[in-house]
């Protein structure tokens, strides 16, 4: 398959700060790709390298086979949905959406027709005459999306696209973005610090930390088979068991990740632990456990009888739930 975006040993350093450090990355054509990581991990800088707002200090970038470094943003067939939407406040919604076409020299009639089509695509038909300031956050998000899509980019970049929306709207937009991407077939690359968002929307996820990619894989790979302790912990806050404990339990000397939902609490289980805390979160209750001078977290579904703080309980898990991370030290 053709690659939409290719990073070969790409670095972006600001003096001593290595925002992006020797990154190799391939985003496939037509893929919904997520760049996940905490703030300052290099995900946004990577996105800006693709958009052309930043130039790499070293390495090589290709967009659909064409060299991208040195090419200014306005000569790349790539469009961005900005975190703050960046709608032009002095223009109507229609002029905002038609801006790219206006710059490209498309006639007024044609570009307004295309702008209206794009507004229909994001389910805002007839909103053209309004001012961006008269729209809600979710509507602005859609206008920003229409403004980018109307130019038929080869790659659409989304910078924390749902960050400013409330929970309900965010879930709705997640589904819409996903189905929009599938029906248009455009490569979407989006940046997020929300692991739930990355797992639910993306075909593949790259997990960033300290300017480097920790792991690239399908959401299932990332969640079930994390390569490093960082990935295990950042994607779904896993329990990380140190190598000596794993040696004793599984006979192998490597760190292992154990998902909280895989930890069972019940009388017949294999190990002894003490309950140190309980926190109710709705559908599940998070149980903190002291196990061999370690801190473990278990999730107990609502409706199951709960232990009390200070109780001695038996805990256990399936051998397959213990994921060894032999690569990451």
């Amino acid at each position, binding site marked *: 398959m053709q690659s939409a975006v290719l990073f070969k040993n790409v670095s972006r350093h600001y003096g001593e700060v290595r925002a992006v450090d020797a990154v190799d990355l391939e985003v496939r054509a037509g893929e919904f790709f997520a760049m996940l990581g905490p703030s300052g991990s290099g995900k946004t800088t990577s996105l800006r390298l693709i958009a052309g707002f930043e130039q790499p200090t070293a390495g090589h970038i290709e967009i659909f086979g064409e060299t991208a470094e040195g090419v200014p943003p306005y000569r790349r067939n790539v469009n961005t949905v900005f975190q*703050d939407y960046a709608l032009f*406040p*002095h223009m109507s919604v229609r002029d905002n959406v038609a801006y790219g076409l206006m*710059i490209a020299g498309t006639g007024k009639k044609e570009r307004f027709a295309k702008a209206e089509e794009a507004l229909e695509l994001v389910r805002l038909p007839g909103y053209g005459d309004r001012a961006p*300031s008269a729209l809600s956050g979710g509507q602005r998000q859609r206008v920003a999306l229409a403004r980018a899509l109307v130019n038929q980019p080869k790659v659409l970049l989304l910078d924390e696209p749902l960050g400013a929306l409330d929970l309900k709207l965010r879930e709705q937009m997640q589904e819409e973005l996903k189905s929009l991407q599938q029906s248009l077939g455009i490569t979407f690359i989006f940046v997020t610090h929300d692991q739930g968002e990355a797992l639910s929307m993306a075909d593949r996820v790259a997990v960033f930390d300290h300017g480097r990619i920790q792991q690239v894989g399908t959401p299932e790979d990332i969640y079930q088979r994390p390569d490093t302790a960082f990935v295990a912990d950042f994607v779904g806050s896993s329990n990380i068991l140190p190598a000596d404990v794993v040696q004793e339990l599984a006979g192998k000397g490597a760190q292992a990740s154990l998902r909280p939902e895989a930890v069972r609490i019940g009388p017949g289980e294999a190990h002894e632990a003490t309950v140190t805390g309980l926190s109710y979160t709705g559908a599940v209750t998070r149980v903190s456990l002291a196990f061999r001078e370690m801190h473990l977290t278990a999730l107990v579904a609502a409706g199951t009888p709960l232990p009390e703080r200070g109780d001695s309980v038996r805990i256990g898990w399936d051998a397959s739930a213990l994921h060894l991370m032999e690569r990451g030290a």
Partner: protein
Amino acid sequence: MPSDRTRKAPLGLKIAAGLGLAFLHLPILLIFIYAFTTEEKSYQWPPPGLTLKWFAVTWERPDVWQALTLSLQVAAVSTAIAVVLGSLCAAAVAKSHFFGREVISLLVILPIALPGIITGIALRSAFHLADIPYSMWTIILGHATFCVVVVYNNAVARFRRTSGSLIEASMDLGANGFQTLRHVILPNIGTALLAGGMLAFALSFDEVIVTTFTAGQQQTLPIWMLEELVRPRQRPVTNVVAMVVVLVTFLPILGAYYLTRDGDKVAGHGK
């Protein structure tokens, strides 16, 4: 709170406010009234009679026209210089980070904080050292020092309120630097520049101190008025000119006020 707004102010406060306003504005009214007086040698109250002839006399005086033309030229050119330099400087300070940025910002604002007399002396000795003959251009240079500040202040405030990603969004949508300037940057800072320019024009138009130090034989309108006051002939002509000055400076300032007041909508961040 609406109740606070509708509650009537006590009588004493009303009288005090009225007296304050009268103190500020009655003298200006007097200037206007003296423009119509029939007494030409001294300002006599009440005016012995009223006449419109001073308007005709003023119209016929070439020295008034010369001073007015020079003042308009100086104000226009120094405003133009200020708009270009002030907005460029504001763009640099508001939109990029570089070593010494705050110092530059302070140095740009300093001329308006410095007493005009210092600016005047400094410029005069600088012109003298550099052997530059005094002309309209030395006056313009002097005025530009404080006009730049006014434009800079307006533009920098607007730039700071304008989201930086607007420029990136424009570039992202295919616009090069010039197209971005034309379609995004200018429409967003346009009213701020216009307001700053109007204030700069008004400041330059009635400036006396810096002008006295940087002018040679040329007389701007305020300088002409100053000289006219010591002359005992046709005094009301000065008052007629004063009315013109008030109009020429007041209207731009009023305009600038309205432009920046609505500016929030124009330059709003979009959030």
